[in-house]
């Protein structure tokens, strides 16, 4: 197997995740797109760890743990937004706009 096939798959998933973050307006769907991006990065880390030692796998495990924490806090924030505004529409949160 080639190294590039894994890296290109990760690039495709990363681009799709970026598209999702830009286009989606429901907060939960934005978090799902961020998960796509983090998973794409993890594929890269594990693929490079076959060349450079096990550091990459350790880092992938760290990324998985941080992603779990991020989803927990992110969903709590979205829940709070829903309680205050009765909607999870990210585009309506524009109080900081002048």
């Amino acid at each position, binding site marked *: 197997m080639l190294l*590039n096939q894994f890296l290109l798959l990760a690039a495709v998933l990363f681009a*799709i995740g970026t598209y999702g973050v830009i286009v989606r*307006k429901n907060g939960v*769907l934005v978090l*799902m797109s961020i*998960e796509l991006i983090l998973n794409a990065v993890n594929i890269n880390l594990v693929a490079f760890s076959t060349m450079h030692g096990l*550091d990459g796998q*350790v880092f992938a495990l760290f990324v998985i743990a941080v992603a779990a924490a991020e989803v927990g806090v992110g969903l709590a924030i979205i829940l709070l937004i829903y309680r205050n505004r009765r909607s999870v529409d990210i585009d309506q949160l524009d109080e900081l706009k002048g």
Partner: protein
Amino acid sequence: MSALVAGIGQAGLLAQELAEPTFAVPGWVAFSLVAVAMVVAALRVVTTDNVVHAALWLIVVLGGNGIIYLLLQAEFVAVTQFLVYLGAIVVLFLFGIMLTRAPLGRSDDLDNNQRAIGITVGVLLLGVISYALIRTFKDDKLYFQAYDGVMAQAGNNRTRALANEIFSPQLIPFEVLSVLLTAALIGAIVLARRD
């Protein structure tokens, strides 16, 4: 004469290939199937107009990711992926969908009007990354050569080698990570509780 030598050389190469069975072909087949499924599912996650379906398509992407780790001989990461992502994070997403009472059927207002910008950024990003990757790594093969040394130290056991890596050089980041998890847990509880 030279043709004969070349013929013998080719036969020798063929015999060598037959004598050493590799998992190249099954690996390619598995990778292609999983990669196609993952890309289709990822596209469905960002385009479907049903929030619950997006969470279910996300399961396909995350599971495919685990299989990719298995193809890269990272079994421990694969099992962690299945446990943490499929077991915990997808359930958390489904709870988030239910608690925010998102429309459970189809709905038209999940996307904003920035689709053109999104497609432009995505294609541009993909183009730049692929160009750089293809230029840099061309057709480099995966040899797993980095695993050999650490595995020899750890009695030919890759999970033990990974444990050695986490609990000696990476011990401090590991401990910091547990502090981060505690902080995130407390933060999520403080944010989500009703006063």
